[in-house]
């Protein structure tokens, strides 16, 4: 098993490396370079040449890539062109807002979708199952910015229970924080809830038809026991994969939610970076999002390898 996990970790590292190549290459392909971006309209050929010389932009792309990669590995993400501050500092101040949003949404949506999925599986074909199926399908079909706007209109504008902007202040108490974060977290959770729930339901139901479940039922065990102890451990692998996919989807969902609710998070930084052509910032943000995506999937794979007794305990 350790061999398989090591192999999978190696694949993860390779993917990370490839992601860095692609991100660097993508910013390289963009018309114009950093020097042009800095000088803007007022550029002259001499000024450009001087600046390029100064910033080392005349060096071959490979050298600059290795330089950048080395920076990444040592924690130096470069200097922002727009603010002249280190990119790492800028990200640090914003990172927590995004991470908090994603963690809260994950902490709510994963257990909720698992339990709803199991509940639906236990009553497959019943009224609860059908209601859940219709409502989750509707949630999948509606884009999250729309859900966000509807929630905002309902709870913030009409009922005035919750806040429409998710800007938190250090002096906020628990309820202030709750009012600020409830809507973006709910929007983000809705976006990923449905998929995970349906996968849980169908994986578990799939296992219900297997002879070992009939065997367990013929031992007189209650349904709850059958679902949690017998079906769930065997359904873990597909469920974990879908959870990872959805959590990593959340990384992009966050962009929309942060925009709708005005959260000063990482994705806002990224969007600002794109507007200002702040290439070091874009590269760093893209690299962070890419790594989260890869790491989550890696984690799911490793966990599902570990949940398989055939791999854990070979013959």
């Amino acid at each position, binding site marked *: 098993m350790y061999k398989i996990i090591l192999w999978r970790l190696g694949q993860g590292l390779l993917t990370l490396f490839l992601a860095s190549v692609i991100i660097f290459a993508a910013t390289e392909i963009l018309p114009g370079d950093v020097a042009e971006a800095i000088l803007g309209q007022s550029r002259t050929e001499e000024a450009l040449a001087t600046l390029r010389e100064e910033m080392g932009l005349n060096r071959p792309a490979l050298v600059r890539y290795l330089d950048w990669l080395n920076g990444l590995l040592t924690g130096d993400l470069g200097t922002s062109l727009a603010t002249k501050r280190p990119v790492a500092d800028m990200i640090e101040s914003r990172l927590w807002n995004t991470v908090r949003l994603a963690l809260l949404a994950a902490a709510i949506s994963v257990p909720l979708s698992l339990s709803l999925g199991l509940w639906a599986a236990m009553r497959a074909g019943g009224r609860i199952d059908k209601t859940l199926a219709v409502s989750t399908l509707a949630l999948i079909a509606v884009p999250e910015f729309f859900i966000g706007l509807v929630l905002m209109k309902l709870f913030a504008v009409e009922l005035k229970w919750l806040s429409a902007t998710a800007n938190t202040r250090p002096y906020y108490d628990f309820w202030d924080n709750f009012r600020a974060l409830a809507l973006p977290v709910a929007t983000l959770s809705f976006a990923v809830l449905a998929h995970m729930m349906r996968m849980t339901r169908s994986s578990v139901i799939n296992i219900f038809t297997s*002879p*070992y479940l009939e065997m367990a*039922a013929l031992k*007189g065990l209650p349904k709850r026991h059958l679902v949690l*102890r017998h079906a769930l451990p*065997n359904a873990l692998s597909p469920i974990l994969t879908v959870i990872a996919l959805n959590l990593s989807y959340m990384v992009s969902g966050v962009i929309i939610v942060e925009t709708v609710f005005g959260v000063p998070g990482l994705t806002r930084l990224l969007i600002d970076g794109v507007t200002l052509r702040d290439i070091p910032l874009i590269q760093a943000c893209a690299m962070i999002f890419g790594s989260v995506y890869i790491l989550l999937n890696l984690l799911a794979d490793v966990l599902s390898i570990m949940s398989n007794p*055939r791999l854990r305990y070979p013959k």
Partner: protein
Amino acid sequence: MNTILTIKNLRVEGRPPGGAYVPIVRDVSLSVKKGEVLALIGESGSGKSTISLTAMGFARPGCRIAKGEVWLNGRDIMQIPPAERHALRGDEVSYVAQSAAASFNPALRIGRQVIEAPLWHGRADASSLTQQAKTLYRKLDLPNPDTIGDRFPHQVSGGQLQRLMAAMAMSCSPDLLILDEPTTALDVTTQVEVLKAFKGIIHDQGTAAIYVTHDLAVVAQVADRILVLKNGEIVEEGATEQILHEPQHDYTKTLMAAVRPAPHLLPQPAPAAETPPPVLSARNVTAAYGAVTILHDVSVDVPKGSVVGVIGESGSGKSTLARVIAGLTPLKKGTVTLEGQTLPHNVKDRGRQTLQDCQIVFQMADTALNPRQRIRDILGRPLEFYKGLKGQKRSERIAELLELVDLPPSFASRYPGELSGGQKQRVNLARALAAEPKVILCDEVTSALDTVVAAGVIELLKSLRDRLGISYIFISHDLSTIADFADQIVVMQEGRVVDQGPAEQVFRPPYHPYTKLLLTSVPKMRQGWLEEVQAGRDATPSHLVQG
């Protein structure tokens, strides 16, 4: 209270998806006393499993117990609330299923599953139950009884798992034990051990048992009384002795007649006929899955129009041999030739003619036939692919093929799910025949079928050989069928050919020791055989080697 279970006027109905309920068991009454083993025998579809499950008040999804009384330990369990009925499963009655490999949860340790039922029913705490389970493991002759419970199901062999399932069923010391074809999936050599274990444990604990099987020789070893079923109705009931030796009803007589003569009793070899040249031959084949070598230097010739039987225990490489010949598993060394032409190793590189000439029929017709295709499409595909038949011609040929395998032409519009096991196997065969092959590789094609149905399929294969000159490689673990059907026999053990030759030679003394072990493990229709073979083995294990 001597009678454990009484079933009166039972009627079970089943419903195909989207259809109406139709009766599958009609007016069945039976009773089992303490310490008694009642066997339910009959073909598949006769309702034997369904009846055995109703002893727990259980009906599979899509079925319902429509009428009747099920008296267990003095109360009618159909009259008590479902929750109470559910609670006595795994407590007063327990169940042993056909396939232990499928009935153990792969994600949980064996020991936990063994003690799960009594633990849930509050019989004792986990540690004392584990101790009891270890005693059971010892009784069942399981290796490492102290640690085997800590293993996962994939870590033990099929025969051990089957015995562990017996332990699982006995762990709650039930009053009634239901055994649903518990040895059908096992090799003959393992079957003897498992049968002995079951019989011993039923005897020791004085449990009442219902034993469902289609294997009459097995019934002869374990049952006190026999109930013969057909189409969900009781045909005949009586003591084992009487049913086996003086069957009254015509159907029972048919069942007895379908039992093949024990393989030793082969006639004297016929005067050696000219062996026709081989149509297919595998030479020095070595094949492996990854680092594990499955076949070592195997050579087999199939003369034209003859049947080569391949026997051996599971894991001996029989199926791999068929897959290598068909090109489904790549070979490492050696060659496969068809009519003198060396075939590419991979099925993808083989020409259409080669594919057409060499067809394979798999064991499980259930999984080999696409459940979403009508029989017409299943048979039509090879007709189009190999023969280019379309429209009217195609329909005519499909009707011919169905007729060839003794099925009515109206079956063309049915789905596999609407057919019985034997009918599906015939369709499976018809699909291979559609290509008009020279050789058919049959991988355990009768193993999942009942005696009578299997006999029908064998007759069909014989007549196809005689009429169309088709050659077969016939893989089976059923030695009686092989003895009856095969011209040449190949005995395989652990991926090697240990014995090979004309059937009359292989199955007559002097035997190869391994062939002899296989032959002596085939249950006889004689009561008391199990004890004899066991005594014989315990006393002089070397007698098998003497030949």
